[in-house]
């Protein structure tokens, strides 16, 4: 049912800013609620799922300009809430293409929200970030605009400051 009056559109919000604190203060409740209803593994999938859906809607308005992995990921996080990410290639195939890379988030906004360390095994606190990155990388692969010509990307969070780890790390496996 269309609304009789316009309450505003996504375009009215896109590009405007709000303190990241608003997201940081509600994220712990989201994680805890998911853990109350699902296993840690499923809760992690839920976080990734939420992030992927957000990224899908975001890409209706936002057109990424970068064509390389690091620049694209930086552009994504910069657009959402800023941050500082570095990339390490862990493994290459026989054609010297990277098949396993590591994104190290030096300034994870989600893990900053956790006042207490999450001690539940099986769920990484900032898994939502891997959901954002995975959706974007696969979207860009479909567009065929990336310099690295991969078919698909699978991104998983392997350590989170919110779980007491030293760094937030997301592993990305490429399929060619």
């Amino acid at each position, binding site marked *: *049912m*269309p*609304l*009789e*009056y*316009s*309450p*505003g*559109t*996504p375009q*009215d*919000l*896109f*590009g*405007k*800013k*709000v*303190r*990241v*604190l*608003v*997201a940081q*203060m*509600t994220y*712990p*409740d*989201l994680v805890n*609620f*998911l853990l109350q*209803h*699902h296993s840690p593994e499923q809760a992690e999938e*839920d976080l990734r*799922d*939420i992030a992927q*859906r*957000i990224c899908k*809607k*975001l890409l209706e*308005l936002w057109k990424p300009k970068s064509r390389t992995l690091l620049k694209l990921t930086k552009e994504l996080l910069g*657009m*959402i*809430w*800023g941050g500082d990410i570095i990339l390490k290639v862990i493994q290459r195939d026989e054609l010297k293409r990277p098949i396993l890379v590591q994104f190290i988030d030096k300034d994870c*906004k989600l893990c900053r929200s956790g006042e207490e360390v999450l001690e539940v095994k099986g769920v990484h606190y900032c898994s939502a970030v891997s959901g954002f990155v995975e959706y974007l990388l696969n979207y860009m692969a479909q567009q065929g605009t990336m310099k690295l010509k991969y078919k698909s990307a699978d991104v998983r969070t392997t350590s989170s400051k919110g779980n007491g780890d030293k760094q937030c790390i997301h592993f990305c496996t490429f399929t060619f």
Partner: protein
Amino acid sequence: MVRKKIGIFQKFLAQVGKRLQWWHAPKMDLYVLALMARETVVKYRELLNGNLPEAVNTLKEQFASSARTYMQSFMGQLKLIVSKDLNDITTMSDVSLYSILGPDYKHFFSNIKYLPADDPNNKEKLHQFITVSPKCVMCSVIGDLNTAEYKDTEYGEIISYALASLLELIFEYIGTPYTIELKETRCFLRGSPFGEGIMYLHPKKT
């Protein structure tokens, strides 16, 4: 000790302070934040066997509760703009919204209006604060969903409920004995041309 009224100098400092707070704070895209709320409700609904009103209510309570927790840690800084005079709530509201949303907050929240209990136009004879939203942060992002389903939920009042909760916290801090009842009187989802919420101040029974 809480002052009786905010003076001109405090108001000036608050105007400078809100800009510094905003300039200094880490920020994120407002559209992404609104999408986070939208998708959280969608996920909660899945978990709650399709019960949309309960999903919305869960997020509403969580948001208000975490806003209170956040505010409690900042009450010391807010001393400057807190007073016992209800007229000053409009200044407090302006400073708080500006420090969260920056100058763009006026796209989404008009200045809060205070209606004293003894105002001839006040039928309820309770102090009231009226908030008007020319555009709604929450509703802007659900146009592609089945909005008819959201019409009878409290989706549109998630933010104003949190604001009412914060106001209640301020009243606790200044020792003013009121509890707040929020009524959403107009909502885009129910066909209104703008959003409107009225906060009624009920004297606290001791």
